[in-house]
């Protein structure tokens, strides 16, 4: 019988592709014999853009690197710049960043597992998990004012403190999330179709994974317990207790199990952090300080009546809520050359005004010393590193992102060759490819 190989394009726009990517497969019957991955369809020029704006101006771009867990990218970039500046931030800020990034990690895992399950036919699980993600994004919205493009971190701190009532909201959201995880676990973990398609597919050995530079749940699925949070602790992770789940076989099912367990561990971290988070020395409640419209504040300041506005909270725009003075002072580093003053000071006294202007005016901004630093954090997908070279001016000379999914995508031929074409779907789902990070 005359047989020949068939070339099949999967993507760039394909229902099973999480984003735009083209996989050129060479098939022998249904078996994949060769594979060529083409990325670059989403090239956003993050690294080039980061050279043109000031250090705080990069923050909105980092949101778009990974649109499911932007807070981790925010945090990683901020901590890289803080390392470059050689500054430290208060503990409370670290705790807030940890809490928010763990919430992001859960929502990222929910999306990844839910979408992979949907591609294998389990649409119910997808809907359940998106429902749970909603609860978490409500928390994110409560704190940052946005759901997707949060831009929450600042060099030297975060935008605002946790709002009143966050603890209860968080407890409720986690209760719902736990319920969803339990339901999904019941629906998937012993489901014949799901398990048959996940186990034994997309296998990679620990040596190969290490050689490709794979990190995160993917590497842990192979049995290597590498987690940046444990091995190179940053922020306050060394004070929190959590376990690093590992798999044994390095196949898709192991990665699914690792992700499911990691969500539970992340919730454990958040609950601990919320218990242990130190109060700032004052942290006056915004309800007790007297609110005053920003315009009125400016008017009083113009006539020199500073004393009457000293204890007030500026009521500016609803989206700026949370950046008021009592919420601000103890979550930002104690260095005036880095963090923006509270709005009350900007409007109320000349020092505050000058500090604000020196940081936001074009050509001014934060000016770290010349140097180069690399700072890794544990992203939802693995090690997310920022390498920054500074020439001492107000914008970075070079910013490089080490995206976790780039390494995993480069190993895709190793994962797929020899498998069936139908195995491409669960394998690609477990890669959790994030276009924004992959192309930068």
């Amino acid at each position, binding site marked *: 019988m005359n047989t020949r190989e068939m070339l099949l394009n999967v993507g760039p726009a394909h229902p099973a592709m999480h984003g735009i990517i083209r996989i050129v497969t060479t098939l022998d019957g249904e078996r994949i014999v060769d594979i060529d991955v083409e990325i670059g369809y989403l090239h956003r020029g993050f690294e080039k853009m980061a050279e043109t704006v000031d250090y705080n101006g990069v923050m909105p771009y980092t949101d778009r690197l990974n649109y499911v867990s932007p807070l981790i990218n925010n945090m990683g970039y901020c901590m890289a710049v803080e390392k470059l500046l050689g500054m430290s931030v208060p503990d409370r800020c670290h705790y807030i960043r940890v809490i928010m990034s763990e919430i992001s990690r859960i929502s990222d895992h929910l999306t990844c597992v839910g979408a992979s399950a949907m591609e294998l036919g389990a649409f119910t699980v997808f809907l359940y998990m998106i429902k749970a993600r909603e609860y978490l994004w409500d928390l994110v919205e409560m704190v940052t004012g946005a759901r997707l493009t949060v831009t929450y971190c600042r060099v030297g701190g975060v935008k605002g403190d946790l709002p009143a009532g966050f603890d209860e909201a968080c407890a409720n959201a986690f209760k719902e999330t736990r319920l969803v995880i339990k339901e999904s676990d019941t629906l998937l973990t012993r489901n014949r179709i799901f398990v048959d398609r996940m186990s034994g597919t997309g296998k990679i050995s620990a040596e190969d994974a290490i050689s490709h530079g794979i990190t995160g749940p993917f590497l842990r699925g192979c049995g290597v317990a590498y987690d940046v949070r444990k091995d190179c602790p940053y922020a306050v992770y060394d004070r929190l207790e959590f376990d690093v789940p590992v798999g044994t076989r390095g196949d898709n099912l192991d990665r699914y199990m690792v992700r499911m367990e990691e969500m539970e561990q992340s919730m454990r971290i958040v609950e601990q952090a919320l218990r242990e988070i130190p109060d700032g020395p004052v942290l006056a409640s915004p309800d007790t300080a007297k609110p005053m419209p920003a315009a009125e504040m400016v008017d009083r300041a113009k006539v020199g009546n500073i004393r009457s506005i000293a204890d007030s909270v500026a009521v500016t725009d609803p989206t700026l809520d949370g950046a008021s003075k009592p919420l601000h002072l103890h979550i930002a580093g104690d260095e005036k050359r880095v963090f923006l003053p509270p709005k009350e000071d900007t409007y109320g006294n000349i020092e505050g005004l000058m500090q604000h202007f020196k940081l936001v005016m074009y050509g001014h901004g934060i000016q770290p010393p010349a140097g180069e630093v690399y700072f890794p954090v544990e992203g939802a997908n693995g090690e997310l*590193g920022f390498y920054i070279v500074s020439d001492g001016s107000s914008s970075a*000379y070079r910013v490089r992102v080490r995206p976790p999914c780039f390494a995993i995508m480069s190993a895709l031929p190793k994962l797929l060759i020899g498998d069936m074409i139908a195995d491409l779907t669960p394998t690609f789902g477990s890669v959790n490819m994030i276009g924004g990070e992959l192309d930068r």
Partner: protein
Amino acid sequence: MSAVSLIQAVRDRFPAAVTASHSFRGDATVIVARAALLEVMRSLKEDAVFQMNVLMDLTAVDFSAFGKKPSRAFFSSSGVAVRPSSGIPTLDPWPGPPADARFAVVYHFFSLPLKHRLRVEVLLQEDDPEVDSVTPLWAGADWLEREVWDMFGIRFRGHPNLKRILMYDEFVGHPLRKDYPVDKRQPLIGPVN
């Protein structure tokens, strides 16, 4: 191993190949001569002292515009002084950009068994941007080197498949070079020139 002792260990092992080293902000960094790169890399991966089994990142920096940024705004010419920040700690100062090289290829390593990080840099001249490929040692270098080729035009000797990865094949130039004009029109995009 601490940054200082790690640097010392690399320097002791390769007294001739390591041309410089520093530990700015605690990042252990060694600068390696281009000719000795593969030898150093192999030893970093295999020696029991180093065991750098993960190539975390591979990138490049184009130093041709370092410190030469044009005055950015009318504020800087309007008499408002742009003061450099003072009070920033200057322990282990950064030695600065390379004096006589345009590119630096930067490798970030991590050792899973020993949990230490090392940055290796190779300096390249403008007219000869070529360096040995490390794909035989780390499979992950394949894509990373392709990306550096695509973005900076640095060739990797011995790379199995050195072609563009983010840009398309007809793209002219290398976009992360500092002299790449950002408004340059490329073939296949927009109306024909």
